[in-house]
């Protein structure tokens, strides 16, 4: 099992307090964490950052989570980046749309701290 320490995680959400909470949780789990608050910034950051996983909010002003996910899936350099959607939209259709746009996992707000950490670790293990 690879160490979490080498894994880079990018958190994207327009709610500063949620970003803050996730940052605490992921750093606590040993990941290297970067944050941003909208889709446009996220797209700018991923190219250089090449994160192993991106926690992505769906409903954001400007570019939403689905567009960011599609952008990542179209970049060959980013084919190792896992996507985890984090959203308040919880209907089965929403989930389907999320997976269709290329997400590895999908978590509905409000989330359980342990669950989200476990889920992130699971996704990273399957991929690597």
């Amino acid at each position, binding site marked *: 099992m690879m160490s979490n320490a080498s894994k880079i995680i990018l958190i994207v959400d327009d*709610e500063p*307090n949620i970003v803050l*909470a996730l940052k605490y949780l992921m750093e606590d789990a040993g990941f290297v964490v970067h944050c941003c*608050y909208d889709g446009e910034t996220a797209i700018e950051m991923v190219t250089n950052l090449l994160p192993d996983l991106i926690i992505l909010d769906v409903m954001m002003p400007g570019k939403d989570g689905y567009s960011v996910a599609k952008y990542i899936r179209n970049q060959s350099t980013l084919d190792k980046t896992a996507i985890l959607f984090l959203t308040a*939209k919880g209907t089965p259709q929403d989930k389907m749309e999320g997976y269709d746009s290329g997400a590895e996992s999908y978590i509905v707000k409000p989330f359980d*701290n342990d669950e989200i950490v476990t889920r992130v670790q699971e996704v990273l293990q399957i991929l690597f």
Partner: protein
Amino acid sequence: MDAGIVILISLLYLILLFGIAIYGNKMSKAGQSIVNNPLVYSLSLAVYCTVWTYYGSVGRAAETGLGFVAVYLGPTIMAPIWYMVMRKMILISKQLRVTSIADFLSSRYGKSTFIGVITTIILVFGIIPYISIQLKAIGYSFDLITSQNSSNDFWDSSTFYKDKVNYFTILLAVFTILFGTRSLDPNERHEGLIAAIAFESIVKLIAFLAAGIFAVYFLYDGLADVFTQGAINPITSHLVTLKTNPASATNWFWVLVLSAVSVMFLPRQFHVSVVENNNVSFVRQASWLFPLYLFLISFFVLPIALAGKLSLPSGSEPDMFVLSLPLFHGYEWLALLVYIGGFSAAASMVVVSVISLSIMVSNNLLMPFLLKTRTAAIEGYALLSDRLLYIRRMVIIIILFLAYGFYKSVSSNFPLVSIGLISFTAILQLAPAVLGGMYWSRANKKGAISGLLAGFFIWFITLPIPTLAESGIISKSLLSDGYFSISWLRPYALFGLENVDHISNACIWSMIFNIGLFVVVSLLTTQDVDELAQGDIYVHIEKYSNTPDMEVIRREASVQKLKQLLIRYLGSSKARYLLKNFDGALSDKNADNASQEFINYIEKTLTGAFGSASAKLLLSTDIRRQSVTLEQLNELLNQTKDILEYSQALEEKTTELTKTTQELAAVNTQLKQLDVLKAEFISTVTHELRTPITSIRSFAQMMEKKEDLLPEQKKEFLGIILKECDRIKRLINQVLEVEKIDAEVDALGESSSIDSTVRLALSRLQPQIEEKNIDLSYQSSDSTIMVNLAEDKMLQVMLNLLSNALKFCDPQAGIIRVTLDRNYAENATYLKVYNNGQYISEEYHNKIFEKFTKVKDGNLAKPEGSGLGLYITRKFVEQAGGKVSFTSSENEGTTFILNLPIYNPFPGK
């Protein structure tokens, strides 16, 4: 012109007419009727224009100038009334299968035989002189065109077999028999005849217009020239000026009335306009097409009269100007056309009049007597229909030779118009009984009989008898001495009425007695059951024509007997055909109890063929009628009226229901749309609630699970949790507020002071203002301004605007400026809230006042807030009748502007 050619052309013309008639019948049988349109219908009405019109009106115009116009003005002025009366007459006649004006009256007054008899007699007496003038005109025009005046010729009117009018009469009789009595039709419809009549109407119009154009444009230089010359010449100058003379005004009035009545009730008019009518709606087009025809055919009357007087040798017969003008000036072929036009006018009048008279005489006069004879009872009226046709042919011949006799003895001495008016006055006698019968429920049989007899008697002694005296058949002393040598019984000045013409004299007295007796006797006597039932149909025909076979009195009969009845009277083949037509409607074929519909069908069929009175007699033995008293019948009639009213009410209710359903459907769609909006709203609200809960839950869980948290971290986490809790609280409050606003309609009658509300809001926000160290100022030009909004709402508006300003103003050196101004011109107030913060980008300009629109603030995170504040603000401001807007520019900050009308506690001022 050679007499042989004229005779040949007349014969060829008749054969052509007959060909048209046969073609019309054939097309009608093939189901492609050529007469089933309003134009042909209107043209057939022009059978009104006889030789009297064709030749006579010129004669009258040559004597009295514009006097002739009344005969055409009558029907034209009466067109709206004609439309109403005709429509009703057609509906009644179709409902009851009435086939003549005599039957129309007989049926109305309890299917009375007697009414039928007297009406028929009046009409025969009235119409025979009228037919006689047609014969006269044919003979006279023939003489003129063949120049047969000298006695050494073959034709000699004093010897019977040498009189050509005699031969014309025979020709017309043959023609009429061929046209009208080919078969016995229960509806008395003759489509071929109507086609021929319509064709003749075109021919006579073209011929007369040709004569007019010839007179005006060939003999003179147009209308102006004719009239100018007419006015200069002393012989004619009186014709072109209108004189006001009380006697001629009375005459005008009565001629107007006579022509208006005749155009409806003359037997031939009744026949073409009612019996032969295909579609009631044609009456509407005819009500302007027919007057148009009359206008066209009378247009050249006065010019022709003037041209005749001016250019023909004196002593020329004015009645024949139309023909003598082209003849005299050497236009023989035009003269022949004019002659054919006149012949057309005469022939159509004679044929239709005699057919309708023969129907009346056979159905209303002879049938009732025939049915009472012993042979009829013994033979069971076998093959009555064949006998009826035979009777009709005889009647046609008799009527025509009576007319011929009248022509020989009387008409030859009188101008056409005066004889025509005598006939019209006879028709006038029917008017009270017919119109009263259609519009007055109380009109009854005894009243109608009294009026008819009195009117007919007065007519007889004031017009035909004195005419006989004038022509020398009876002593001329009658005219000067009066009946029984009593001076106030002088026929032309009855009861000492001097200074009126003969026609007015007859009209005035006959109408006084006719109408007077009709009304008085009707009021004084009662109706029997039959009269009441029939009267109800006539007066309230709408009730019956919408509900087929509406039965008031129940009747019973055996199906078998009714079938036998039909076979006996109409012959087996026709009866079988008629029964087959009805068969579909026979509800129960095995039952011998005839349905009301079947009884009605048999009765109508027989009425059509034999007249209502005869049909009643024929059926009397086989139909048992429920015996009802007058009171019961009255009650029944009222019930049917109730049923009718009820069904009308039901119909109204149905339309109302349909409308309500449509409205409900519309509301339903609207509700569905609202539902969708509501679902969206709820989904947005839950999303907005999940966001703070997510943070709260996550931080709370961290605090629970991790024992090693630093105290500052704990404090930070708790601070976040509290802040997010406030956010939820705010959101819930605003959602409730939005719900309330959406449900509210308006908030009139509430008011608050805008100045004190601004001050209250500022004091509430004082801690934040101080915390952020903001430069805030407030300027008020008028502290007394009141607005139409409750204080709590006004306060919320101010808090929303001010907290937005606080949130968005420059974080380092925030400036907020609040100003309150009054605009006297608009009677409104302007409140501006300025902050020096970020520019609000274009994309928000349309959405900022909508629900859940949040403007991105600053660099990173989105603003705190529900996105409902400005929506609530806008709603409140709109409730107060105001507007909210904003301006924003790159480096100059943003200003929100409230424009509110000033509250007026006394709206009237």
